Structures are given as C-alpha cells and as structure tokens.
C-alpha cells in the first residue's frame, strides 16, 4: 500500500528538518535534500512497506542524500564559496536574552564540530537514539558512534565553558 506522503511529511518533516539543518548548516541544502527525499519516496513508495522504524529510515536516507549533495557541491564550489557558509541557528528563538545567547553559542559550537560528530550528537540528544541505533542509521560501528559522541561532547563543553562560567 502506498504511504500517504502528506501524512508522512506532517509526521516526520520537523525531525528531518532539524537533523538536516544541523548536519548541513544550510537552509538551502536542507530544503533541497528534503525535496529529493520526498521525490524518491514518491517514485518508490513501496520501499517503506517493510520498514518498522520509519523515522530512522528517513533519517538514514536524508543523511545519505545530504552527503551526496555535499560532495556535489564540494566539486562545484570554489574554496572561497565553501568558506562562506551561512550562519544558521538550529534552535528555536526565545525572548529571554540569556537563553538566546546560550542557544546561539550552542549552535556555533555545533557548527565547529565535524559533520559526522554533529550527526551523532543530534541523534543522541534530540532524537533520543541509542548508540546501536545511531550506528545503524549512519552505517558505522556502535563503538565509533560512542567515540564520536564523546569527542563531540568534550569539544562542546570546551567551547561553552566560558559561557557557563559567565552564567554562574
């Protein structure tokens, strides 16, 4: 039975958007990948029939498409263009100035991480995935997922320590 793509979008678009935005750090790339993802689903809707964890399947597909898009862009873009990446915030806005500053700092700290560490951190913290699930989604060993998470967390803590000290 073909899935209702509209319902699929309504159920998973936010999670896909957040993951892709954190991974690509580009709204344009995020939109392109999401478009490509749903095109692929429309072309072969039966691919979801045997899937139990639809969210995980979509994230895995999104991750692969984002990597392909990044490689295509890397071939086409000059070094200067690649350096001028847009600054994006992956967190919702808030009216509290302290909280806003914290969210901006975390967003910038995440941007400093390698994309694959960012992916692991995102899936662990905001998708509440286990390391085994993350490993399966990203196609890496579970130990690698755990290592990347620890390295990323250490970097985030180092980057955000001044802010924590200031907030105390």
């Amino acid at each position, binding site marked *: 039975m*073909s899935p209702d*793509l*509209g319902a699929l*979008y*309504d159920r998973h*678009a*936010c999670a*896909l*958007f*957040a993951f892709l*935005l954190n991974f690509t750090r580009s709204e344009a790339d995020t*939109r392109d990948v*999401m*478009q490509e993802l*749903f*095109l692929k*689903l*429309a072309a072969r*809707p039966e691919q979801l029939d045997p899937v139990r964890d639809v969210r995980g399947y979509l994230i895995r597909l999104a991750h692969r498409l984002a990597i392909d898009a990044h490689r295509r862009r890397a071939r086409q873009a000059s070094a200067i263009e690649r350096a001028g990446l847009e600054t994006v*915030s*992956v*967190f*919702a806005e808030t009216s509290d100035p302290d909280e806003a500053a914290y*969210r901006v700092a*975390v967003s910038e700290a995440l941007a400093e991480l390698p994309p694959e560490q960012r992916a692991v951190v995102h899936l662990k*913290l*905001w998708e*509440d995935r*286990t*390391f085994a699930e993350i490993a399966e989604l990203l196609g890496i060993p579970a130990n690698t997922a*755990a290592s990347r998470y620890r390295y990323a*967390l250490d970097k*985030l*803590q180092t980057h955000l320590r001044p802010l924590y000290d200031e907030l105390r």
Partner: protein
Amino acid sequence: MNPDDLDSEFEKRLSRLPLRTVPADWRDEILSSNNVSGNEAEQDSMPVRVWTWRDWLWPSPYAWGALAAVWIGCFALNAASTPDSIGSTKSSPSDPSATAQVLYAFQLNRNFDELTIR
C-alpha cells in the same frame, strides 16, 4: 549504568533545547514538486519499459550496421589475399610435403626426448 543514558547536566540541558521547526511554506513546495501528493493514479499508471529488438541494437542500428560492414570488408580483403589467389608457394595443410615435414619434426622431437630421458 546504561551507556545510552544522558549522564551529565550538560547533556540534559542540551537535550532540552527546542529545535527549530520546518518552515510552513516548505510543505506545499516539497510535496507539490513533481506531483508528489495526490496523484497516485498517475504513479500507478507509470509505463513499464518493454524491450524491443531495437533496444538490442543499442547504441544504434546504423552503428551496428557499419561495424558489420567493416567486418565484411575485412573478411573480403582477407579472402582476396589468400595463397590460392596470388599463387603463393606456401603449402596447404593437405600438401603431402607439409605432412612429411610435420612427421619429420615429430620424429626429431621424439629422438630428442629419448636422449634427455637417458
């Protein structure tokens, strides 16, 4: 302790940060591109490719025809330059002198083997 648990306040605070939601205007753009939504009948009636004899002549019947013509030309030239046509002195496999030469060479080889075995 479960290694998957968030074991620090730092992690827990990070995980509580609310993520941005997908812009509302993206839905129509993403779902309507290439008629993603609502056109299941069209998707069901997508044509299935049927192989014809022309597909087996990929890339082009003309290309295959030209290749065949080249091969025919090669065979024709080869036939035109056979020993019978230019009066070659080379012996054919059915020539008795050739057979004798082969037998002589075989005998020489046998004699050599016998010498080396000793």
